[in-house]
């Protein structure tokens, strides 16, 4: 085991004096941390790197940009639109695929279980039905969990936190790969069919993002196919824009809410935004909804009827009972408060559970077992609730998909079964639209209670599944309950229609859990197709967010924190003005000279303890040990490409038949640059020199040492930087600010907190 000072020593390469200081300080101070600590939320993981949202403006780049004339730029612009259209179409198709497969498989499952229950109701032996249901659920979920846990763990969960991080500029490994998409789609189908308390809407956003990232590159590295198109877009900046479009298309396909999708991308995702991008993203969203509509209308046999938008369609709220009056506004606000409190409770419970999972259930087999157990318990709880319920409703005139009779009289069905014995999407719609009196309050109360804990327990399992629908379902259940009791209190006055309150409850609960505001309002408005509900929904979501934020933060932010992701918020922490760049930066910095020995480069890159990605390039001055003036910045990926192509000064002098390296060579290696270990450099070549001046970014952003943290933060965040060099007044490199240096300051409960770095 390393002591901290030995770690430091291996990491140092120059500037001995400074390090002596540091070491002395270290030995004097009592060690504040143990070396190994259990996982907690105040950590930043080293495994996450930044994306290069700032173009490296080296000579090659400038040459290429100069070569492109006006007409060619127009072609690029057209290509962007074409890509957006393709993103929309493919996302819509994937949504259709998921929808149709889930509908059929879930239908099959419920029919089998229903037949079984019907059979055993007469003869006795219902425990077998319970076992059958639990086993079916568990085995389906097992498959879904195995593929996620063993093949692609990043496909777990809803994927929204991951996409949020990606758009923030954090490179989450594997997050936009084709393999992830496949696992995600299969996983979500299996977990919904497996009867877990999950929805398929959240994963659609991730799927859309993967599709976008894939298409915009015009190739698939996983399939080893390069279509030689869209090569211009092979860099992080361009890819990011398309990923935001993909996320928007995903939302739009999931909820039939194109505008909501764009706003979702704006609110949750894109940290960088401009007006042309908005219009393109909106285009992608619209195309996605349209594709979904067309395909589903053909599937449902009424071709070209485009009125079934979205995977979940909340149905129309347009009869006169669904209107609202001024008296109801305080009631809605109260519902928002309830939603905020319940959401905070949900998040707090989920926080503890997730912490436990990270600490103890980290082996894939354990994760699979856990998922299976949750599936079995979900079935068991559902069965027991249905078994104990005596709430029977006449079957005539109701639109129940799988009416379970059980102990009800002939011609009646068990009302608890409509809530539990169905896919969550259908249950939500039932709660919104079933006529008053379809559920008795006891049923709804028990359902809310049980489903709350089930959903909370389910989120964070190693299956790919979203939290939107379960939240909506919990909210719809208690909202309906609320509406019924209100109707009871006011002696059946006309405005207390339970469906309306179910909708408000659903909005409140979802807002309390995920804390989205603008986009969620618009999504709910579009999904219900009712603009007049905009105002109450906005009020409800606002209250839910305010109340919820008072207790804990939103579910997605919480999970980002628990994953130790160096996430940059919009602003630097408010009380951080006293910190300057000098205190924030990492130092000493490993610098490269402009004409550097190959051996040195290889050694620096291979050094595992200092896994740096950007290296300031300084004036080559071989006989001086001092740090010289800053000339530029070069990235690890660029160095690797240079080494791979052996662009050495000596070889150029020997005038070997070698073409000049072009930007294309860098693009071809993007985004999976080979590790340094795979590049073979012979002993002779180690003695060669490498000239970096053509490839480095000659105009990196720098800040003086005295700049305050908020100022550094603003520059870093607004430009999407990856490395920010700190220089002194002689333009000599003194330090480097990276994402992790900035992200570690966070406003905690007791003021400014500093997170520690950890290896995970």
């Amino acid at each position, binding site marked *: 085991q390393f002591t901290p000072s030995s*770690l*430091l020593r291996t*990491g140092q390469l120059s500037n001995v004096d400074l390090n002596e*200081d*540091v070491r002395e300080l*270290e030995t004097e101070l009592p060690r504040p*941390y143990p*070396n*190994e*600590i*259990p*996982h907690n939320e105040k*950590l930043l993981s*080293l495994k996450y790197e930044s994306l290069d949202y700032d173009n490296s403006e080296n000579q090659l780049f400038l040459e290429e940009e100069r070569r492109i004339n006006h007409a060619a730029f127009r072609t690029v612009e057209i290509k962007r639109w074409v890509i957006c259209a393709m993103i929309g179409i493919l996302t819509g198709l994937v949504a259709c695929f998921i929808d149709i497969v889930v509908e059929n498989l879930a239908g099959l499952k419920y029919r089998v279980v229903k037949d079984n229950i019907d059979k055993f*109701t*007469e003869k*006795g*032996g*219902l*425990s077998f039905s*319970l*076992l059958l249901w*639990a086993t079916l659920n568990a085995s389906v979920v097992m498959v879904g969990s195995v593929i996620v846990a063993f093949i692609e763990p990043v496909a777990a969960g809803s994927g929204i936190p991951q996409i949020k991080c990606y758009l923030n500029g954090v490179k989450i490994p594997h997050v936009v790969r084709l393999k992830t998409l496949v696992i995600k789609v299969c996983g979500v189908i299996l977990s919904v069919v497996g009867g877990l308390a999950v929805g398929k809407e959240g994963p659609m956003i991730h799927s859309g993002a993967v599709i976008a990232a894939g298409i915009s590159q015009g190739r698939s590295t996983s399939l080893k196919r390069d279509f030689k198109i869209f090569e211009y877009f092979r860099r992080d900046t361009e890819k990011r824009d398309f990923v935001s479009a993909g996320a928007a298309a995903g939302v739009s396909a999931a909820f039939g809410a194109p505008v909501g999708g764009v706003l979702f991308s704006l609110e949750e995702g894109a940290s960088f935004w401009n007006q042309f991008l908005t219009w393109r993203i909106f285009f992608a969203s619209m195309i996605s909804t349209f594709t979904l509509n067309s395909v589903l209308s053909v599937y*449902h*046999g009424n071709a070209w009827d485009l009125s079934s938008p979205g995977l979940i369609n909340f149905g129309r709220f347009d009869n006169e009972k669904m209107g609202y009056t001024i008296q109801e506004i305080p009631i809605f606000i109260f519902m928002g408060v309830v939603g905020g409190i319940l959401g905070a409770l949900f998040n707090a419970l989920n926080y503890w559970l997730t912490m*436990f999972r*990270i*600490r*103890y259930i980290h*082996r894939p087999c354990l994760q699979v077992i856990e998922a299976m*157990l*949750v599936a*079995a*318990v979900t079935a*068991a*709880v559902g069965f*027991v609730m249905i*078994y104990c319920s005596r709430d029977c409703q006449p079957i*005539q005139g109701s639109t129940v998909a799988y009416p379970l009779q059980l*102990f009800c*009289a*002939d*011609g009646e069905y068990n009302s608890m079964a409509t809530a539990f014995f169905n896919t969550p999407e259908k249950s939500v719609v039932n709660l919104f639209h079933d006529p008053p009196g379809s559920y008795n309050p006891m049923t709804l109360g028990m359902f809310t209670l049980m489903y709350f804990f089930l959903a909370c327990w389910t989120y964070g399992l190693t299956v790919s599944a979203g939290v939107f629908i379960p939240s909506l379902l919990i909210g719809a259940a208690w909202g309906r309950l609320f509406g019924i009791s209100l109707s009871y209190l006011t002696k059946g006055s006309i405005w207390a229609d339970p469906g309306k309150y179910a909708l408000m409850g659903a909005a409140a609960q979802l807002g309390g859990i995920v804390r989205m505001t603008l986009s969620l309002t618009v999504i709910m408005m579009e999904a219900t197709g009712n603009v007049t509900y905009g105002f109450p929904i906005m009020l409800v979501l606002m209250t839910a967010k305010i109340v919820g934020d008072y207790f804990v933060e939103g579910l997605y932010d919480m999970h980002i924190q628990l994953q130790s992701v160096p996430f940059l918020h919009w602003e630097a922490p408010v*009380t951080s003005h006293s*910190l300057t760049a*000098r*205190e924030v*930066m*990492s*130092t*000493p910095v490993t610098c490269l000279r402009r004409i550097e020995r190959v051996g040195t480069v290889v050694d620096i890159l291979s050094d595992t303890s200092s896994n740096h990605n950007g290296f300031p390039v300084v004036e080559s001055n071989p006989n001086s040990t001092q740090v010289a003036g800053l000339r530029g910045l070069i990235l690890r990926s660029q160095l690797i490409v240079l080494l791979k192509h052996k662009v050495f000064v000596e070889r150029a002098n020997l005038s070997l038949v070698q073409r000049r390296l072009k930007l294309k060579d860098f693009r071809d290696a993007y985004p999976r640059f080979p590790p340094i270990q795979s590049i073979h450099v012979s002993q002779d070549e180690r003695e060669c020199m490498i000239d970096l001046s053509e490839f480095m970014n000659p105009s990196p952003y720098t800040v003086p040492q005295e700049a305050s943290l908020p100022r550094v933060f603003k520059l870093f965040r607004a430009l999407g930087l990856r490395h920010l060099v700190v220089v002194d007044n002689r333009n000599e490199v003194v330090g480097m600010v990276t994402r992790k*240096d900035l992200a570690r300051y966070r406003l905690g409960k007791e*003021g*400014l*907190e*500093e997170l520690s*770095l*950890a*290896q*995970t």
Partner: protein
Amino acid sequence: LLLLLLLLIILILLPGPAVGLQGLGEGAEMAAGLPELELPELPELEPPELEPECRRLLGAFAEGSAALSGCLARRARPVRLCQACRGHYSTLLGLYRDIALGNSSESHNCAKSILTSDRLQVVVTLSEFFNETWEAANCANCLKNNSEGLSNSTVEFLDLFNKSLTCFEHNLQGQAINESPNNYTEVCKNCNGTYKMLNDLYNNLQKLNRHGSESGHSAHLCIDVEDAMNITRKLWSRTFNCSVPCSDTVPVIAVSSFILFLPVVFYLSSFLHSKQKKRILILPKRIQSNASLVNIQEKYS
């Protein structure tokens, strides 16, 4: 037929704007337009006396609708709409068609003068009401395709329904002799077969219907059949209390508590036996000036 209807509507509507223009006409435009438009319109503007043919049609419609509405009301409980009133309905449908489309030239005028010459349009409203009721009852489902007579499956169902009703009656009479009004075991035992058959037939019909309509939404059978089944089921399980499902609470509780117990075991064992994941802290390379430490500490306190 549709084309003809369209043509008719156009024909009816054509003079409409012209009449409107007369009312609206202002200034020069009116002066220009009026003389041409007015001349052919003149005979139409006379107070419309209903032609004898139309009067006859209207009378027939009145009688037909009276008969149908009487039939509907009489057959409302227990519901026998489709069986009893289908003759009346098809007659009325024919009459309405005669008025609307007609087979002679003069009935064009009838359509206009009866159906569309006032705001209330009573005849249209009435006919719409009957159509809607018929649709809601879904009577087409138990009639033959040309709506002449009940379909075979409906006839079969109704036979079985009558059989089970008579079975109930017989056994209840037997009961009365035994003088134990709350004990229906006899009925349950003897009519079980018929009831089961009826139930199965109904379920089959429903299944067929659902497959036929594809979308699965309009899966209603016609109201007669539905209501008959409803009555029987209510009698069977509410009044006679015949369907007593075996409730096996003990095994269900046992199995479910076993399943609920599993996660507890799982979490406890993974808590006790799984090695807790540790994170290795890495010290960042940075200047630890005293000033900044003080800063941080101040903020902590």
